[in-house]
């Protein structure tokens, strides 16, 4: 039609583009080969700098070229004046900025930048910091830039509160950015330490790396604004859990000594790897060189470690013995006296006193937790099906009073499993954990060594390190699939009732010195091999295997008699 502008067809454009690309490729390959030759010949001249610059500005991810460039620059450092070197490196920084524009996530460019910044005779850290600001405003999740920023902050000694304000700004523009929240969590403890340096008494307090309460209340407000605005955003919830959390002190929480087995068991507050020499046993004032073993060969790290004393050391019942264990690394110790006529003795910190099961939740004052609970309950009324909210609610309830909130906790778990069915197994395990914690607390209140959690829908066993002293355990009518290796921590166990589960694995019944009776009625034990671990329990006399597939095997009775000769009372 008349008057129309004629435009190239797509095919024509494609063809032109292809030709353009071919031309570029030729130039690129020629330059690359040129660089490689020069490097081989050990040439460190300006031309090489130019060539690598050309190549890197179109492909900043070429690590070999960055290396060559560094070699050239290091060579130039030796032959040029400081002012000239400064100029060369400043030009390098400018060039790097153009590379970062091509690919803001190029490993090579960022690495080279920190290398250059560190070598610059007179670095301009303020400029580097503003570069980070700019990059992070374009992409607040660029982890290269976060790393670089941390380096700049360290070199430039940027005050903590200034960095905290920076995170305020980033969170203000996008609170779904976990990088900013996380950075905040690394800054807050620092902020407090610097403040507490003035009164030296406080600095010595064991909780000095905690965030001070005033700041903490501000943080609660900030993070609540985030999860009320968008309760489906997990970054705020994670940060909230960090705020509510606390670090467990590392120490020895229990020491148990058994006269008959001449065995000592040490329980730590968290799994440790006891290296030779770091755990010192002193018996009646005399240090003893002993070999410490974890409770199961599967564990390099374990909360429970045992050692056998040389035969005859404490076996005489009429003797009294004083035992001390030092954990030299953490300056923790435990003493215990084995009195005359006693077969065993122990010294244990109670879980209740330590508030061990306030899960990860904090040591904050009850009033603070109570008001947090109210806020989250308010949100839960508005968003009854929000999983983050429900989960946090459960944690807060547990932090406040695990026993009296038990019923509500179970109801919330039920809702959680329904609204987030993809993770229902996770919730079952978590709920099991909490039910076990509650049972331990109840057991402590009752001052007994009997642990009973029957019919509580347990799907997993945990906190077994807290059950070292238990003699009777009742796990019947749950959904357990196995007795895990950790079960070997129950050093004093005599009777195990675990009927009506789905147990097919007895790995944890390993070298339990006192175990006499095992009730495994109606479980999933299928083969004789599954029963193999029981052979390590010297005192086993009674075994109930009714309702297990293994009873259907031919010659099972005689096979079992061969396998477990000590068992006198066998029910099949």
């Amino acid at each position: 039609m008349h008057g129309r502008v004629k435009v190239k067809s797509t095919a024509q454009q494609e063809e032109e583009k292809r030709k353009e690309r071919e031309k570029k490729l030729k130039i690129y390959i020629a330059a690359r080969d040129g660089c490689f030759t020069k490097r081989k010949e050990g040439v460190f001249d300006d031309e090489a700098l130019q060539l690598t610059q050309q190549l890197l500005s179109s492909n900043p991810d070429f690590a070999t070229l960055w290396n060559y460039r560094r070699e050239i620059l290091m060579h130039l450092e030796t032959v040029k004046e400081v002012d000239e070197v400064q100029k060369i490196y400043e030009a390098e920084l400018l060039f790097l900025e153009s590379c970062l524009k091509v690919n803001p996530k190029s490993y090579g460019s960022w690495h080279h930048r920190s290398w250059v910044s560190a070598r610059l005779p007179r670095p301009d850290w303020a400029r580097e910091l503003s570069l980070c600001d700019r990059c992070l405003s374009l992409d607040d999740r660029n982890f290269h830039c976060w790393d670089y920023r941390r380096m700049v902050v360290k070199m430039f000694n940027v005050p903590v509160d200034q960095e905290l304000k920076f995170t305020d700004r980033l969170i203000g523009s996008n609170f779904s950015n976990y990088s900013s929240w996380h950075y905040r969590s690394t800054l807050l403890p620092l902020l407090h330490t610097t403040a507490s340096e003035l009164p030296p008494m406080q600095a010595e307090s064991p909780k000095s790396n905690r965030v001070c309460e005033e700041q903490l209340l501000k943080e609660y407000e900030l993070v609540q604004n985030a999860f009320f605005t968008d309760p489906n955003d997990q970054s705020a919830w994670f940060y909230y859990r960090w705020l509510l959390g606390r670090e467990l002190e590392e120490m020895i929480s229990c020491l148990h000594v058994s006269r008959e087995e001449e065995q000592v068991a040490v329980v730590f507050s968290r799994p440790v790897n006891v290296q030779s020499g770091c755990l010192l046993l002193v018996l009646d004032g005399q240090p003893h060189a002993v070999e410490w073993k974890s409770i199961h060969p599967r564990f390099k790290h374990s909360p429970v470690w045992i050692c056998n004393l040389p035969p005859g050391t404490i076996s005489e019942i009429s003797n009294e013995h004083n035992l001390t264990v030092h954990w030299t690394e953490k300056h923790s110790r435990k003493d215990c006296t084995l009195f005359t006529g006693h077969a065993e003795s122990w010294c244990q910190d109670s879980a209740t006193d330590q508030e061990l099961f306030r899960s990860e939740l904090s040591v904050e004052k009850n009033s603070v937790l109570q008001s947090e609970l109210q806020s989250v309950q308010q949100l839960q009324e508005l968003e009854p099906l929000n999983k983050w909210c429900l989960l946090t609610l459960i944690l807060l309830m547990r932090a406040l009073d695990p026993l009296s909130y038990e019923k509500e906790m179970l109801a919330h778990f039920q809702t959680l499993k329904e609204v987030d069915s993809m993770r229902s197994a996770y919730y079952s395990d978590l709920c099991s954990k909490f039910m076990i914690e509650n049972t331990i607390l109840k057991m402590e209140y009752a001052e007994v060594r009997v642990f009973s959690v029957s019919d509580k829908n347990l799907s997993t066993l945990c906190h077994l390190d807290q059950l070292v002293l238990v003699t009777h355990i009742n796990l019947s009518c749950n959904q357990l699939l196995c007795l895990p290796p950790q079960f070997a921590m129950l050093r004093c166990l005599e009777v195990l009732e675990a009927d009506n589960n789905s147990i097919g694995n007895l790995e944890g019944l390993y070298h339990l010195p006192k175990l006499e009776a095992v009730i495994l009625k109606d479980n999933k034990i299928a083969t004789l091999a599954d029963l193999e671990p029981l052979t390590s329990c010297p005192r086993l006399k009674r075994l109930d295997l009714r309702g297990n597939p293994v009873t259907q095997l031919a010659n099972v009775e005689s096979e079992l008699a061969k396998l477990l000769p000590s068992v006198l009372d066998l029910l099949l």
Partner: protein
Amino acid sequence: MCFYSKREYLIVIFDHISVVAAACSRVGQRVLHLDRRSYYAANWASFTFNGLLSWIQQQQVSETQDWCDLLEEGEELIQLSSQSSIRNLQVFTYTSKEDEVEEASADSVNTTEEEQHGPGETRCAVGSERLSQEVSRTHHSLQHMEIPAEGFCSLNISPIFQSQATITEGAEPEAEQPQSPAIPSQSEPSRKKISFAQLEKEGRRFNIDLVSKLMYSRGSLVELLIKSNVSRYAEFKKVSRILTYRNGEVEQVPCTRADVFASRQLSVVEKRKLMRFLTSCIEEKDDQSAYNGRPYLEFLRDQKLGENLQHFLLYSIAMVTEDTPTEVGLASTRNFLRCLGRYGNTPFLFPLYGLGEIPQCFCRMCAVFGGIYCLRHSLRCLLLDTATNRCKAVIDSRGQRISCSHVLLEENYVHERKNVATPPRFLSRAVLITDSSLHGSDSEQEVSMVTIPPITEGAPAVKMVELSSSTMTCMSGTYLVHLNCSSVSSAYQDLSPLITTMFSTPESHDQGRPSVLWCLYFNMEDGSAMEVEGHDLPSNVYVCSGPDGELGHEHAITQAELIFHKILPEEDFCPPAPNPEDILYDGGSAPSSGPEEEPSLQLEVEGLDSDWNTVFLFF
């Protein structure tokens, strides 16, 4: 005879209808674009400060002549009026004339539709009978006025201005400046103010729009700019925040996740309720349709959101009034939400250098594809072929006949031909230059949309846009504030009470608020009320209305597309313009078509008629 009159034009377009012009030109139509003004885009235009001052003076009318001698056999004439759609101009200067502090610095210059009467001209405040049918001829300024010729609106003083109208003799600095009795003299010279002289000196820093609009970031204008590649001719600034006026205070409206999170005025529960409401109303639901026909306010009340949120949602997000039906309110809310986050934290964009840039961009597109522009070139009448009832040609203000196949006119030209005389609706506009922002923040460069619910019963809801100098529409240190609402009475009556309460003027005496340095009020005819049909016009003459009162550009763009498809039913509306490197030229040197053809035309012009300095070609 000028060069263009010899040619046969496919389309002749008058005044501001630049989008249609660009669209037609783009698909190869020969477009002639005449404008009686000395600037582009009519009521869509932007002016420098000084430009606006002369525009205020130029609001004038001209006479009708008889063009029958240009008729050919079987033709008849349709006279075109050229009545202005601007009324009730009033100007107030609240800053000193000169840099030094004068004692009586408040000037009031009320200017309305000036008549030029030679040297020693008289300015007079004139209302329109369109606005008020009551006629008062007692005002002494009338003695200087002619009753206009037939076909023009007669000018009358409306009673509205009896109290406000002041006659000042001459605008020249040396002329005496009588003090307005209505305005008390200003007595606080302590605050260092920008003087009027400075405003004039820095006048070119201003780009003051006659319309007050924003661009919805997913609105049809933005989509059209992108689709057609016209966007390459302009740059835009994000509107950075939404404010509202409530209980005598200016507050920021939280409308994005980040805003809600950071808001200090909302409780956490309100935050949740707001977010939940906004998320839920994106989708249409059954429980919403139950409210169809009932007021949106009722729907909001039933959501139990509380007073705060109700205000934000009704006035600032939906931008509707209390009696707007629910379905309209929800649609408006959805539109707002749809536009959020595409470019920034509000749904709006604003073009750098003002809204007047947009029609100019389309003019440029039109010119690039061969359209011809003539400014200061009015149109007198249409020539009609009586046999076919089609317009064959037009006669311009210089008495030349231009043949054409389609004619596109602004509604004002044919206003008198309307079959049913519906009274026109008006918009009340005010333009303020102030010295600080209504709502302080860390940045001095905020661009704010301010929603103001009716301050009293029956008063209009006002939309205000506050532009900082970063938009290139005002000098640094000042803010340009546009107010816009549907007229209830004159612009001054509609808007001055609000301005007095929100800003510091000599009337208000409150120094805590931004001071108004200069202020202009006027009424403009509301384009959405104009009828583009029913003018009893030839089938190839199309009518297009002026700017409407809505915040967005939907009305204008929809209309442009509609007209384009009437003219060229088979063609694509504004297909993407090709990149220059993709254009093919025959034989390498001479371009086959397009803009490069026109330079030869210019030569032709020079050879034929050296008088033609008004021909503007855009390359």
